[in-house]
């Protein structure tokens, strides 16, 4: 059995400390004594975490109750061995914002991980303040579990988020929000957190690299925190409220979460049964050689019982129900991109064995030669005929796309047979879209004329 240690003994490295030094500001020299004159060690009243997924960044907002004296107050904020960006720390009085003014923030010499706020207060007594800052080390990612019906015409999709805290700081009973979006950052928060001097040094002085903080996970302490809050855990799954904000989406998790340092937490984000899907197979020699790739296609819209929220990028594991007892088989996995509302989704499940596309060159000839003044060939046409055989060996209906690329922009095509829908995609690309019932084969041919040299002019 491990002996119970005090909080300070267990985690001396990673602790945000906030101390009010209620001293008149007329004696700024008395810093050494002031730090002993500890007035309050206010606990966090409320914590809100906004976690970003495209950058290693979390915005923490905490509300603490300070006991202020009339006049000058100095407040010390320590973040040693956390991953907090000290330049991001700000403070705001909530009840009396006009009477409590933050005069300045000082990062004193010969100290690390410590800032002093000079606050001028026209009131004496308790004042709730909001402290915000950025930290590195807390992350979230989305992932999905999809289950296809046996006929592969529909899919149940479950979305999850996983939040992981490696910030060096425990966050108990925090309102947790996740931000989906690509923000611009000019400095990495981890780099700002590790700077020896919060704002660096004036350019001409050489910078001494700071030692990185220890990233040891404090399991005992984390377990203690977990036990403490275990009683407060609700038994029903929490809802995640999602709303658009600027170019981003904000997911707010119902209630509060406790995520001690070193721990992760998985939360359900949504569940949607019966999404109609198309089994789509693609053949594109330029991208995948002679393999046929299998895709699951649907759209993030109302027609597909979706369209309420964008889907953050993440790994989708796809299973299929194979019998009445709902046994599953694993079909494959793909990492999706970010899918906005209204956008189509194509999950790449890898190479297919039971769908085959075989284009074969069955005829080649040349004609319309042109000659220059010296009698050399200066232009010609080439004629090729391809036969494309598309086979569906599966017991489900499928859609197949056959992509063809040409190495010249001077071409013409003539299509024959069961080629489905033909589309010229761009200057050098054509596409055939076919639908095949179970266990069927379709064959089509196309005649390709390409013009070369002066024939192309």
């Amino acid at each position, binding site marked *: 059995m491990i002996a119970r240690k005090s909080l300070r003994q267990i985690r001396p490295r990673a602790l945000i400390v906030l101390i009010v030094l209620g001293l008149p500001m007329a004696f700024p020299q008395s810093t050494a004594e002031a730090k002993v004159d500890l007035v309050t060690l206010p606990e966090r009243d409320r914590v*809100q975490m906004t976690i*970003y997924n495209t950058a290693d*960044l979390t*915005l923490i*907002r905490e509300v603490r109750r300070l006991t202020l004296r009339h006049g000058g107050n100095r407040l010390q904020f320590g973040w040693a061995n956390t991953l907090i960006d000290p*330049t*991001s720390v*700000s403070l705001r009085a909530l009840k009396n914002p006009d009477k409590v003014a*933050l*005069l*300045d*923030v*000082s*990062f*004193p*010499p010969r100290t690390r991980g410590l800032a002093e706020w000079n606050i001028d207060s026209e009131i004496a007594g308790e004042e709730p303040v909001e402290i915000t800052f*950025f930290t590195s080390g807390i992350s979230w990612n989305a992932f999905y579990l999809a289950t296809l019906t046996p006929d592969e015409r529909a899919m149940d999709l479950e979305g999850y988020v996983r939040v992981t805290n490696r910030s060096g700081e425990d966050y108990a009973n925090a309102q947790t*929000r996740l931000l989906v*979006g*690509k*923000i*611009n*950052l*000019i400095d990495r928060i981890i780099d700002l957190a590790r700077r020896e001097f919060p*704002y*660096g*040094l*004036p*350019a*001409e*002085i050489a910078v001494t690299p700071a030692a990185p903080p220890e990233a040891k996970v404090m399991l005992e302490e984390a377990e203690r925190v977990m036990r403490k809050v275990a009683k407060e855990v609700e038994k029903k799954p929490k809802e995640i409220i999602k*709303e*658009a*904000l*600027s*170019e*981003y989406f*904000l997911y*707010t998790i119902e209630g509060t979460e406790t995520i001690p340092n070193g721990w992760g937490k998985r939360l359900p984000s949504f569940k949607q049964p019966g999404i109609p899907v198309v089994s789509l197979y693609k053949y594109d020699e330029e*991208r995948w050689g002679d393999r046929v790739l299998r895709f699951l296609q649907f759209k993030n819209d109302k027609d597909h019982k979706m369209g309420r929220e*964008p889907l953050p*990028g993440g790994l989708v594991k796809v299973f299929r129900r194979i019998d009445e007892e709902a046994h599953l088989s694993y079909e494959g996995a793909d*990492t999706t*991109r*970010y*899918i*906005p*509302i*209204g*956008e189509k989704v194509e999950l790449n499940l890898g190479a297919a064995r039971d769908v085959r596309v075989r284009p074969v060159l069955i005829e080649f000839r040349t004609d319309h030669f042109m000659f*220059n*003044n010296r009698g050399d060939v*200066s232009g010609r046409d080439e004629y090729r005929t391809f036969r494309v055989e598309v086979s569906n060996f599966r017991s489900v209906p499928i859609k197949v796309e056959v992509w063809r690329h040409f190495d010249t*922009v*001077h071409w013409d095509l003539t299509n024959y047979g069961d080629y489905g829908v033909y589309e*010229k995609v*761009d*200057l050098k690309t054509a596409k055939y879209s076919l639908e095949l019932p179970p266990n069927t084969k379709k064959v089509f041919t196309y005649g390709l004329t390409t013009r070369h040299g002066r024939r*192309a*002019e």
Partner: protein
Amino acid sequence: MRRAKLGLAILGFLTLAATNAQGRIKLVALPERDVTIIRLDNPHVCFVEEERVLTLQKGVNKVDFSWKGVRIDPDSIRLRVLSHPEAVQLLSLSFPPDEAALVWEIASPEGWEERVRISYLLSGLDRLVEYRARTEKDEKNLALNAYMVLRNFSGEDFERAKVFLDSEDAFEKRIQNGETKRMLFFTAGPIPIIKTYTWDAAVKPHDPDKTLETVGIPVHYIVENKVNHGLGDSALWAGKARIFQDDGQGTSVFIGEDQATFTPVGDRMELYIGDTREIKVTQRKMFEKKVNVRRNNGNAVVLYDTDELFTVKVENFKKEPIVLTLIEHIPGQWDVEESNFKYEKETANRIKFLIPVSANGSEMLSFHYHRRNCR
């Protein structure tokens, strides 16, 4: 560790020749600084002016000024006599060997108190500007807080210094050696924002379906430094700008940061806040042919024109209408045959389209042009 310190000592010599051999002896109490001014209006250099009151004796006085451990540019040091500029004369200035020090010889007709101003350029003390903006939820306006960050690694403590930036307003601060101090500089707002989305054909992939990640389209906020926009008093200095947005829940969300550039009054500050993934742009070359081919006597092609057509599909997945700024680059000499959207020729080879797209809608730009006299 010995603290770096600026020292100033007056050595009053009444009998000049006799005392030369004794060297410099600190005779008089060190005069404390009276007023210190730190000027940071030049972004690269810190200029310090300090005033002290010297007790001069009749005759020649030696004033010793030393700056061990302080990063002063010795050639920039100047002394200006303020109380009796006509009567008191600066005779000479000399640097003792191997010391960060100098000695002024000052001749005074009377024994009196003399106010002097010593000025010098100082390294290791500078300022940064940092902005923190909060936009309204509808992104129509923002409120701006500008902070000044003083970094003092000059070797010298300044107990009470008047810090001047680029205006006549100063603020008084105590800043120790090794200290960094951040303070609110000014607040402004509400300031109207222009929000733009820019897709540049030279930068972004043309087929977003073939990329591994969803292609982001850069979003900028444009703020004008004008009086009727809540600003316009003075230039906005370059510095990091962090932008938050009101989230409608009583709190705010961080939505991105950028390095703001120096913005004079009347100019625009452009801040890249992040990428939108709610707009999709797909560009395709649909047609290209050599036309008007001209040949030399040997029948080789020497000149030709082209006939080209590209299409750009813009899809808007947002619930609000947008206007996309689309940038295209066409090399050489060219002219347009047909375009279904208006364009602006920004340079000889760069054109800009403004493409409005309705909420959840899409638009297709079709641009038919010729390049001329290609070789």
